[in-house]
């Protein structure tokens, strides 16, 4: 067996699923957690907890972690606004990078990272769900030509999760909900996907997943978008003027038409994690894929209301991402969700948000 790649975890303030996913592959070994010393105490607490769990040191010194621990890979899972900065520093130190989503909430930051990754010749991958069994199955069918050339692709990506008090619950004298305070508090129930100082809607936070499916299944770039967004469910989204429900039409390379329906639609809206489906039309047929399948139903007396009745099985997503990353390093190939594709996804989301603001079709190249 090849000696494992030694990994530095640069901030782990969210769900920690990214570094856990990295560590699940035998080719990668977490050796240190690090963050900047000027970070607030809640950040240091979470970093320390994760380091303790893995029995590795926590350093309040990113540069030292990058230079003194013989690391080859950085795993970045900070607040979104620090993603690119931490990744850049790792890239400049010659490390390959596995980064949490979204790539950034600033396209200019993505551009800096694209330039650095390509100049330094290192590998970059954005965390994704492209190796879920249903998506792998869809990819196999498309690649085998079962539906011919893809002409249209539609993704529904609804997370049936709550996110604080419902829309309309704030009293006339109550202050608006502070985004960061809410996200920090929401860590306990896992609804802190948008953790950071800058508020982000669901399209920005989760849009990478369906857009990565579309890239994976078509390979086509998105050229123009038309979008509608709403704060439809949660007070925290309305108070911070970000979306929790959106729809996007995609005009893609080669005349492919696509669409996204995406939202954090509330726990009462679906018996499981949510309706996540793909519909593809090709020149030889159609394909309908439920991302949750295969799954197993488990029902019993006294079952907690929020426990999912259907459990996903055969989930090999973590290994798939890291195997792809490992192969890219070893063969000097590209990862499935490389830095340019990730940047293109951020640009598509930015174009969609701009379209929703101006009620017009927006070219992705214009953002």
């Amino acid at each position, binding site marked *: 067996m090849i000696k494992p790649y030694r990994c530095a975890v640069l901030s782990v303030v969210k769900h920690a699923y990214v570094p856990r996913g990295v560590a699940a592959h035998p080719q990668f070994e977490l050796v240190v957690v690090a963050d900047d010393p000027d970070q607030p105490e809640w950040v240091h607490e979470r970093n320390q907890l994760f380091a303790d769990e893995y029995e590795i040191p926590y350093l309040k010194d990113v540069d030292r972690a990058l230079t003194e621990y013989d690391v080859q890979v950085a795993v970045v899972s900070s607040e979104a606004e620090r993603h690119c900065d931490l990744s850049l520093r790792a890239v400049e130190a010659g490390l390959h990078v596995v980064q949490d989503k979204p790539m950034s909430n600033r396209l200019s930051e993505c551009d800096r990272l694209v330039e650095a990754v390509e100049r330094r010749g290192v590998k970059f991958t954005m965390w994704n769900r492209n190796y879920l069994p249903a998506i792998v199955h869809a990819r196999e069918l498309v690649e085998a030509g079962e539906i011919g050339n893809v*002409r249209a692709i539609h993704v529904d990506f609804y997370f049936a999760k709550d996110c604080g008090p419902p*829309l309309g619950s704030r009293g006339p004298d109550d202050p608006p909900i502070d985004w960061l305070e809410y996200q920090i508090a929401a860590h306990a129930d896992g609804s802190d996907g948008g953790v950071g100082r800058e508020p982000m809607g669901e399209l920005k936070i989760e849009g990478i997943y369906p857009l990565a499916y579309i890239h994976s299944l078509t390979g086509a770039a998105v050229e123009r978008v*038309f979008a509608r967004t709403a704060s439809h469910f949660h007070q925290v989204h309305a108070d911070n003027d970000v979306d929790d*429900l959106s729809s996007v039409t995609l005009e893609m390379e080669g005349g492919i038409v696509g*669409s996204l329906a995406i*939202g954090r*639609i509330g726990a009462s809206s679906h018996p499981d994690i949510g309706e996540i489906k793909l*519909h593809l039309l090709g020149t030889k*047929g159609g394909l*309908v894929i439920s991302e949750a399948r295969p799954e197993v139903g488990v029902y019993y007396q006294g079952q907690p209301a929020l426990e999912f009745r259907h459990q996903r099985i055969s989930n090999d997503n973590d290994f798939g991402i890291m195997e792809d990353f490992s192969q890219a390093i070893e063969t000097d190939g590209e990862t499935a969700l490389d830095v340019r594709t990730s940047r293109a996804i951020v640009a598509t989301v930015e174009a969609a948000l701009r379209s929703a603001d101006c009620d017009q079709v927006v070219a992705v190249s214009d953002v």
Partner: protein
Amino acid sequence: MIRLAVVGGHSNIKSYSALAPRLLSAEIAIVVSEEVGTQQRLSGIAGVVESDVGSLLSTHSDCFDAVVFDGLCIDFPNFAIALASAGKQILVSDESFRSIADVEYLAEAFTKSEARLMVGHELRHRSDVKPVQEALTSGRIGKPGLLRIHHWKRSLPDGSMCLVDRMLDKQLDLACWLFGHPPEIAFCRRQGRAIDRRGADRFDFVQIHLGFPDQGMALIDVSHSEDIGANYSTLSLIGSTGAAYADDHHNTQLLIQADGCRGQTTEETHVPLQSQLQDFVDAIVENREPRIDVDALRTMFHVDSMITKSVATGEAVHWEDVP
């Protein structure tokens, strides 16, 4: 007992045979069809079978109270007005109206008449759509947020293709009905231009994106192609406090044979048509206005114009952008 005259009915022969004994307070008294096969199949449920629509008023005027137009009828607007003048109630498919001018012409004529003009929007009566609409109107799923419809239809065995735009019209009506309002903005993409076996020029895929007041939105795609071997339809409506999913994927059964496994869905037969006919009959019996009037058609034609402009310009079109 309301006596119905059915004009056309070729594409719904099975449904009429099944629904005839199920209708309450009504019977099918006359069938008018130029198709010999239709005449033969429906002769068992109707006392009179005719081939000439003109004979309805000239010969059988005393034998029916209301007319169901199922299929295209030559000079429908003028014939409908003649029927209204004779006090006959009318149920007509939305497909019978060729233009907004037809709609306005008939609307004005029926305003002056005591006869009712009910527009048939069969999708509203589908058994998988009704629970969605009831969940919405009862308030159980809250304010409508995002409606998503995929509607794919296989080509007919004879190679003919219905207009995908016509399929879209039915879905547009459904969307406006569920949101209770016309859209403010529309963006449309079409593709798959092809020549069908009859030599007609067609698009076989349309996608439309609608924005409704109060942040509502809808994404609808419709395909009618020889590449699709089976009908498939799914509708989801995300509301502010819940959601409804009417999904052929959920309802697919498996046929397992020596050469593999195939998914099959159970086709609805007479239920939507029966529901629509019964609603029409009930409106007559209860002497109330029909639930669906010509306003729905006005909306549909206006949205059609928005779509046409969107396709031509490649841009999103607001309601007020078209006359």
